[in-house]
């Protein structure tokens, strides 16, 4: 069942652990009751990291990240942005400063980062960015939010995570095939797609009872 968002085209509703989440085709989820935007794996600075290695990543790649982030902040007007790890790909660079400036523009919003394996900037850098740091997973309502999917989820809680960069394969008759990024919600655990443009994807194999929403261009679709 695809329940569309009344204003935002392409966005659909999902029911996860009894909570209403809006899944946006820009690869983010909005938790309406808590006015919280959930984003996983931005991998900011990856483009610049490549450039430093002598690889010319087009500037358009990082611009796209900013455009989408701004659009999400303006569309949902969240009170809180929870970044599920791997915010920043590399050592300190110009893109980090761009990020700090963006955060400044939204000073009523609380930006919080749950540390991931790529987040290794010094602590003062995060403080300067007005970014609240969570070293470990945090619990909010029924959700246990983390970067890595947790190996064990306590009874009665639901783990939301990133890190995987999930995608699925779809097939139709006439031997048609597609590979698309997705939101993957299992029984006790859900994984968000990677937000960052220019990041790879890993195929997940959902089970029968799982909910899977693919991002088909400008549209999120349950499959």
């Amino acid at each position, binding site marked *: 069942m695809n329940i569309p968002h009344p204003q935002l085209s392409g966005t659909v509703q999902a029911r996860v652990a009894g909570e209403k989440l809006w899944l946006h085709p820009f690869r983010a989820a909005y938790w309406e009751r808590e006015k919280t935007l959930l984003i996983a794996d931005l991998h900011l600075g990856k483009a610049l990291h*490549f*450039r430093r*290695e*002598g*690889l*010319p*990543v*087009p500037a*358009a790649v990082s611009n796209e990240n900013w455009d989408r982030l701004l659009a999400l902040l303006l569309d949902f007007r969240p009170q809180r942005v929870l970044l599920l790890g791997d915010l920043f790909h590399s050592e300190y660079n110009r893109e980090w400063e761009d990020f700090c400036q963006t955060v400044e523009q939204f000073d009523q919003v609380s930006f919080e980062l749950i540390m991931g394996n790529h987040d290794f900037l010094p602590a003062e850098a995060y403080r300067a960015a007005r970014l609240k740091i969570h070293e470990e997973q945090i619990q909010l309502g029924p959700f246990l939010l983390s970067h890595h999917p947790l190996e064990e989820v306590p009874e009665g809680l639901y783990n939301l995570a990133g890190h995987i960069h999930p995608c*699925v*394969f*779809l*097939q*139709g*008759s*006439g*031997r*048609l*095939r*597609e590979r*698309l990024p997705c939101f993957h919600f299992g029984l006790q655990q859900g994984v968000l797609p990677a937000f960052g443009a220019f990041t790879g994807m890993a195929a997940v*194999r*959902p*089970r*029968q009872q799982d909910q*899977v929403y*693919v991002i*088909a*261009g400008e*549209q999120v*679709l349950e*499959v």
Partner: protein
Amino acid sequence: MTQAVDLKPGIAWFEKRGWQPFPFQLQSWEAYLSGYSGMVNAPTGAGKTYSLAMPILMEFLQTASDRSSEKNGLQAIWITPIRALTREIQSAFQEAAGELGLQWQIAIRSGDTSSSDRQKQKRRPPEVLITTPESLHLLLAAKGYPKYFSTLKTVVVDEWHELMGSKRGVQMELALSRLKGMLPELKVWGISATIGNMDEALSALMGNTLETGRYRVIRANIPKAIEIASVLPDEVERFPWAGHLGIKLIEKVIPIINQSQSTLIFTNTRAQCEIWYQNLLEVAPDLSGAIAMHHGSISRELRDWVEEALHEGKLKAVVCTSSLDLGVDFRPVETIVQIGSPKGVARFVQRAGRSGHQPGATSRIYFVPTHALELIEAAALRRAVTEGELESRIPYIRSFDVLVQYLVTLAVSEGFRPADIWPEVKGTFAFRSITEAEWAWCLNFITTGGEALQAYDEYRKVEVEDGLYKVNSRRTAMRHRLQIGTITSDSPLQVKYVGGKYIGNIEEWFISQIKPGDTFWFAGRSLELVRIKDMTAQVRRSKKKKGKIPSWLGGRMPLSSQLSASLRFKIGQLQRNELADIELQCLQPLIEVQRERSHVPGSEEFLMEYFSSREGHHLVVYPFEGRFVHEGLGALTAYRISRLSPISFSIAMNDYGFELLSDSPIPIEEALEQGLFSAEGLSADIQASINAAEMAKRRFRDIASIAGLVFKGYPGKQKRDRHLQSSSQLFFQVFNDYEPENLLLLQAYDELMAFQLEEARLRAALQRIRQQRVILSRPERATPFAFPIIVDRLRERLSSEKLEDRIRKMKLQLIRD
């Protein structure tokens, strides 16, 4: 001849050995000694080496004041495309030189030559250097090269027809242009087997020498008889309709092996080679120890051993790939077996020629079909061989990646002045159409990285000092020397025993499918994967009999235009029941099935079949033009149909035809009425239908690597980060977005059209189709013609439906447990 030349020393030497020079040898001697450049057109095993080695020696005898000197400087360079040939040429040369009383050194320089030997060659140049195009460029990358080459009289390019069809040909042309620029008297000679476009081969090698008229073409005209015998299945009805391995007929190959002193079994892919080797041992265990295998991914050491053993007649059979197409003569080889379609007439003739080397001997070749319809190809091959319809080799032109690499090479050593080099480059065949603007672009590219890359220091390789273009950075120079060459491949994983002994290499994606502890077959051995460490797969011997067989990507050759034409001719004969060939007789029952279910097209007819199955709606079309043309035609027809209404296709093809498969009915009549094969708007439709950007991106990988945009890492220390390997795709994107006029980018599209889509052939095919009568048959189920195509899993896709709409019809692939 205006000038009398003395051929006596050569003739005397021949007589001493009890030989008699062939007329073409005498003609080459005379032309060479009269100062001409030229081309010798002679097959392997006809004594072509002596046609040019002798006059090189005789020239020295006539002109040198001191014949016994040991320091004469470099006299001749002999280029061969493959290292396997070098030893034979060296020993022929060395023997003749010694017996003519010359204290010459004949040296080999290749990728295998040790650094200390290279140093020796530099300090005391050998009189004759046998080497490859890459190594020649490395010499041009060394400081002081003008002095090194100052005494050079000639460059001989052996197997020119092989080099010409690749970018190594362009590399050769550029090196020759520099040598000719320094040495106006230099003689350039080529040796080539017969190909369809001999004139072009000559032009490409001679470049601007052609205008001076100082060249000669010498033809050996040694006829060679080829006997083609097909290995026929007992009952064609029970022979597979599709397939590519040919294992079904393996029992019939054993007696062929047993009857001959030594047999070469040619397969089309390395995986097929592994499979045949393994299966031969299973079917005929007594052959163990007497057969071997040979392909390009096996270590040099192993291949050398196999070649040596073949030479000495120790092996009963060798299963091989095109890795043995060229190379030294293996006199003990009496019989050739070809498994599956050789795809081209010239390749087939070349392979057949690997047996019966004595002049006048008949070459015998057995053809083993891998599926029923391939029997037609045997008949088609026989006809084409008889008619002498050999393929052309299309020379690469305007390969700016090679030019950019060459300019940096010159900048690394002595530095260059554009005013000197420009006319030389312009004088080559490959760059005769280069404009001044394009030349300026190349110079700009190596000095600033070009428009899109200006911001990156990495791409500012060459600096300009007082008009001299030079590389000053030692690091840049070293990196460049490591990268010289035009042969590119994915960085493969090395396969080694735990103890460290190297066995060969394998593609990363294959290894990624197997886990430590799993068994796989490689180089004819059962190996257990122990671990993967630093781009090396460490293995140990396994006793297990079953294991995966690696496959290597690439290498699906299309049926050549010549063979396709011959194939259509034979299908016409089948339609008229003219069954002179035994293969066609054998195939007859199957053709009856095709006739019953659908139709057998005559030469004026064009067959299309439309039917439905559980899988969807199939439209199968039979142009018989080879898979590359079908790739283009398939995309084109899919695109034109998809414009009528939203529809999605998956497209499969083989050498005989292509299939459009859809989940919804295909409006075929409407499409035909609207001119499915019309010439109108053809170029635009082709561009729109194929994913040109995606395909060009794949082509661009090699270009970026040759042009030095991506650095593959130091030897033995390849870059590990996968993300850095995908970097050529990034360059492609950057150029597409910011510098669409980038010559390297345009080259990718040009190569795509010329070599992959074979645009010229595609247009010719459409022209032919328009003159034929379309037969649209509606069989109830798949026909023998359709079967091999519809089972193909490798498919392209094309759709005019919105992604969302397509997704809505699809199902998720669920976990299997």
